[in-house]
């Protein structure tokens, strides 16, 4: 599946090309860094309820469009730049995600959901092409090239997995001709792709300091992919500030939610053996409490942690190329909590009283320690976490029905706001073998009988073509304040051809996450400028596993055996009858054995004849008869 070889070549190539540039950049970083920095990186840590920690890594670098066109790459990764240029890509978004965001406990998503994708790999891009065919061709080039660069099976994004969303996506960058006909938006998704270390390595290689210095030194595959939720994003877009030259901006971000309890386990002993009895915190107020009986208190919720504990290593200085005005590490905890940082670091509290940033010398290792909040009888005395923001919408999608013929999809959309209506676009890109019945699409408000189809305002539907194109469904709808809406539709499962099944057919087929784009209330402010705040909030549901009717794959083997046997028997008998000539027994020539016997008889007779005449006569008589 994975294309290791080309990726290896490409990375080698990028290494060869890139290193001199990095060196030059390194040398000239100080002299060139002007008011508008070309590169900055920042790590934002946010402790979440239930002993989770959100770590958002953000790396951003710019290159002016003129420099880019002159192939003068500085911070912009050359390997990626060349691919983009070759494929005529104006804007690119690439996402590698794993796990799920637990909105109930963790609240709103980081970056308002703009930097995340559904499980697996998701990418969308605006390509410059005159015709649809040309766009498709460029898209193919782009996916294949990125597939090699990122060690992901992006080359499997074929026409069946590509859609052209109409309402859900808007360009983030400033395009002079944003609505021009030669801009094509293509969207592809691979829900079954398992994101892992081989995707992280090329990701880190795109950074100016790689993973060697700065906050990127914390990024370790073992920790990143042990997180409860993680998403790696690459966004490339042209940005035109009001004053000055347009730049091409690449923003790489990694957001991960770490389970503090799990991350603190030493790597050489990761097995969660039961702790010694005296290490468990017990609720001593229980009447039955004894040395061998312990009702555990949820002590895991308030734990102390340090960066080196949970990431396995401290931050190795700062990246020398980064903009010194941007603090590399920030943590979002109330000001009342004490945070210890390593020597030489400067703590800067932000005016919102809920976050603080740290600056530290470029050559020093940086570590940070957050002690457990003060507790009394198991309950926390003071507010120790910044209260998570309530998301605009909760969405949960699941299958309904059972059996292998048809099914349904139900999405539960809950608007927590007491007075604000939420308007959003719900997009599904379904595989072609799920044939949806569009007439069954309906919305219903929980607690109210009957359908509430007035909630569905607009439907864009592009039906699937078997084996050529997937279903694309975009629904613009609203959810009234403080209510839950069930959006349901039915579908039929088609039967695949024998060779179309993957090797693990009985696992089921992954159905990509639905993309929900919540529209900004204030539409007028967004639509005008290119860098619109079109989407107020993005979220994605989880992927689904669709069970298709699966044949017994040993059946063809049985059939072959069976038919072979039948043919052998039938053909054998038939052939025998066809080629055999039937004659009466006395008409036919004497067969070999009989001939031999007769010869023997004749010989015997001859011998006997010589001895005496009488037996010879009888033999002759017999012959005559």
């Amino acid at each position, binding site marked *: 599946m994975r294309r290791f070889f080309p990726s290896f070549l490409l990375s080698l190539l990028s290494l060869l090309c890139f290193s001199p540039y990095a060196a030059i950049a390194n040398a000239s970083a100080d002299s060139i860094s002007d008011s508008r920095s070309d590169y900055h990186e920042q790590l934002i840590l946010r402790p979440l309820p*239930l*002993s989770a920690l959100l770590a958002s890594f953000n790396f951003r670098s710019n290159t002016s469009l003129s420099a880019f066109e002159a192939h003068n790459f500085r911070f912009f990764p050359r390997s990626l730049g060349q691919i983009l240029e070759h494929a005529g890509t104006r804007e690119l978004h690439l996402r590698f995600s*794993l*796990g*799920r965001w*637990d909105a*109930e406990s963790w609240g709103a998503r980081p970056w308002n959901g703009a930097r995340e994708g559904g*499980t697996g790999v998701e990418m969308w891009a605006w390509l410059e092409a005159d015709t649809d065919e040309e766009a498709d061709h460029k898209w193919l080039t782009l996916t294949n090239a990125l597939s090699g660069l990122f060690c992901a099976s992006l080359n499997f994004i074929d026409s069946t997995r590509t859609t052209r969303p109409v309402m859900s996506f808007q360009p983030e960058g400033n395009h002079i001709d944003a609505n021009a006909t030669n801009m094509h938006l293509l969207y592809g998704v691979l829900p079954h792709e398992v994101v892992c270390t081989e995707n992280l390595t090329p990701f880190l290689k795109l950074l100016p300091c790689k993973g060697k210095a700065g906050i990127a030194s914390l990024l370790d595959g073992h920790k990143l*992919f*042990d*997180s*409860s939720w993680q998403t790696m994003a690459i966004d490339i877009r042209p940005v035109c500030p009001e004053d000055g030259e347009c730049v091409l901006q690449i923003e790489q971000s990694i957001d991960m939610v770490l*389970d503090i*309890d*799990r991350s603190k386990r030493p790597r050489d002993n*990761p*097995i*969660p*053996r*039961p*702790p*010694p*009895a005296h*290490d*468990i915190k*017990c609720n001593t107020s*229980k009447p*039955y*409490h004894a040395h*061998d*009986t*312990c*009702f*555990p*208190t*949820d002590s*895991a*919720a308030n734990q102390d942690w340090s960066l080196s504990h949970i990431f396995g290593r401290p931050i190795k200085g700062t990246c020398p190329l980064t903009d010194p005005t941007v603090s590399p590490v920030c943590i979002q905890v109330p000001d009342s909590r004490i945070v210890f940082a390593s020597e030489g670091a400067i703590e800067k509290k932000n005016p919102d009283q809920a976050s603080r940033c740290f600056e530290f010398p470029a050559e020093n290792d940086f570590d940070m320690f957050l002690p457990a909040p003060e507790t009394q009888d198991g309950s926390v005395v003071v507010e120790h976490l910044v209260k998570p923001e309530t998301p605009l919408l909760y969405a*949960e999608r*699941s*299958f*309904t*029905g*059972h059996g292998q013929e048809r099914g*349904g999809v*139900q999405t539960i959309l809950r608007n927590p706001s007491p007075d604000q209506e939420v308007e959003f676009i719900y997009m599904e890109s379904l595989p072609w073998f799920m044939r949806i019945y569009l007439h069954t699409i309906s919305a219903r408000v929980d607690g109210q009988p009957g359908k509430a189809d007035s909630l569905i305002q607009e439907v864009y539907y592009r039906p699937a073509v078997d084996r050529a194109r997937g279903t694309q469904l975009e629904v613009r709808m609203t959810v009234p304040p403080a209510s839950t809406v069930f959006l349901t539709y039915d579908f039929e499962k088609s039967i695949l051809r024998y060779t179309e099944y993957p090797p*693990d*057919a*009985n*696992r*089921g087929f*992954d159905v990509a996450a639905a993309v929900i784009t919540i529209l900004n209330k204030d539409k007028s402010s967004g639509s005008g400028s290119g860098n619109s705040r079109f989407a107020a909030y993005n979220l994605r549901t*989880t*992927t*689904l*596993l669709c*069970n298709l009717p*699966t044949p017994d794959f040993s059946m063809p083997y049985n059939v072959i055996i069976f038919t072979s046997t039948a043919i052998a028997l039938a053909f054998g008998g038939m052939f025998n*009858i066809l080629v055999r000539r039937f004659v009466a027994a006395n008409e036919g020539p004497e067969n070999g054995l009989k001939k031999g016997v007769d010869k023997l008889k004749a010989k015997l007779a001859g011998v006997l004849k010589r001895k005496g005449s009488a037996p010879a006569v009888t033999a002759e008589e017999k012959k005559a008869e």
Partner: protein
Amino acid sequence: MPRLLASALSLRRDPRLMKLPPYLSLLCIVVGVVWLFLLPLDDYSRRTYISENALLPGQVHTYFGGSDQNVFRAYKHETDELAGKGNIEVNDKLESIAKGLGLKVGRQNFTYSSAGNTHSGQNIYAILQAPRGDATEAIVLVAAWKNVKGELNRSGVPLVLTLARYFKRWSLWSKDIIFLFTPDSIAGPQAWVDAYHDAHDSSRVASLPLKSGALQGAIALDYTRETRFQSVHIVYDGVNGQLPNLDLINSVNHVAGGQMGMGVAIQEMWKHSNSYHDRLQTMLRGMLKQGLGLASGPHSSFIPYHVDAVTLQPFGDGWQDEMAIGRVIEGTFRSLNNLLEHLHQSFFFYLLMQKERFVSIGTYLPSAMLVAANFTIMAIALWVKSGQPDVQEVITEKTKTAEEAEKIALPNPHVAVERDLFLPLVLVAVCQFLGVVPLYLFNHLSESALIPAFVLFTVLSAILPFLLSNLLHTSTTSTTTQQYHLIRSFSLLLLGMFLSSLATLNFSLAFLVGVFSTPLTFVRPCPNSPILKWLSLVVLYVLSPTTVVFVASVLPGLDEKVGYGLGEVLRQAAFAWDVTGTYTPVVVWCVWWPAWIVGVVSVLGRPGGGDKKMKKA
């Protein structure tokens, strides 16, 4: 070859051929029954083996134990305090514990009504989200508050809570784990599984507030003991005789028997010497349970949705403690967690005769099919016979001497006579549709009315054949031999058809009904031999559906000293029909009973019309 054809053709006209079918039917039955009794032999059964390589049962170290036992004791105290309290109160406590562990908790109300009783309650379940997963797949651990016998699951519930706490610490789960606590062992799980697949009647069963991915397997724990145990009993029968994938049973067997070194028992065979006798007994018990098609534990409701599930019951006095069964569950869950695909490799149709011996469908199916085929053979024979002029009987019975026989003008035996189809078709159809009456009655009456209704129905069903028989004869044109042939032919044809298709769904039920109805193949109108007639009647009435149901309910059960009693059996049947959708009553009242009625009618028959016509001729 042409000669062979010719001889076959000439054989077709041989009168001896028509004598063959009853013997052929008898042969089928005998071979079918003997076949079944051969199965426990080493040559016909096979050792079990793990088909799905991904399961790797017993290959992991299990770490459950140590200080977890202290936690278990605490949870057990909490559970003991809740004994005897209301469903809601219990669930409040369970919810507070599960939420304390950091699990997502949902509740679901359900109300079923059956036989005039209301079965209502509230399920509570907690979802442990796979640490790196995406809610695509899930496995379920069920602990019913009360087991099928109504005993409090005193150690099972705290053990599942302790396991939930322990599982939370692992980061290797690839599937969500759902911990389900139901107030009872049948209705609660059924309501939950129905709602999980959105196959529920929303007026009786509430929808689930939380859901996860596709269910890949379920383990139920029925652990009422408070002392140490010796072995673990695997209960695997699903509703309507459906079975979980054999790989699941093998995995549990492997983990419990192989890794943990505890005994494993199936089908309540607490001691199994692996002798022919014990194997046969295990197999027959399994067949009986399969044939009844009742839910045998919390796992049963999962199986119709293609979710493989078993219930584990520790039993016997030994030295294994709660942590041991916890480790069995841990090991099994680790195996299920390894699954890349839904369990599909191994057998879904099998008979287990020891924990490590089984026969698969290919080996055992012929036995039920042969029994079912005997009816079809007889039906075809009767159809052919009904098309032939009724010569044989005329000669043998009416005329004693050869001279007289010659006097009678013999009609050409090769010319088919016209069949009078109307009366037989109507009679058989009416009998088939009458089967709906008991089916409706026994599933809709209230509990107190069940026994009187059954007694009344038994009497009516005993009288009905006489009424029908009289009806056939008091009518202006009396029923001919040919019509009796046709009546039996149609009835047996239906029976054979139903049973052979049922054999592929529920082998045991088809076999049992087939064996009980074997006399129907051989009974015939015998107006000239009252002894034979009354003998046939006695056999038929002894093996009538109502008698069998009554005797089965009064006879002591597998391990009980006394039977359940008629009222309990009828109530259970109604409950199974209403809640779990057991179709055994349909087979009994709409397949077996109509065939039996037609059988008795034909024994009572006094065919005359045909003979009279013949005499005139």
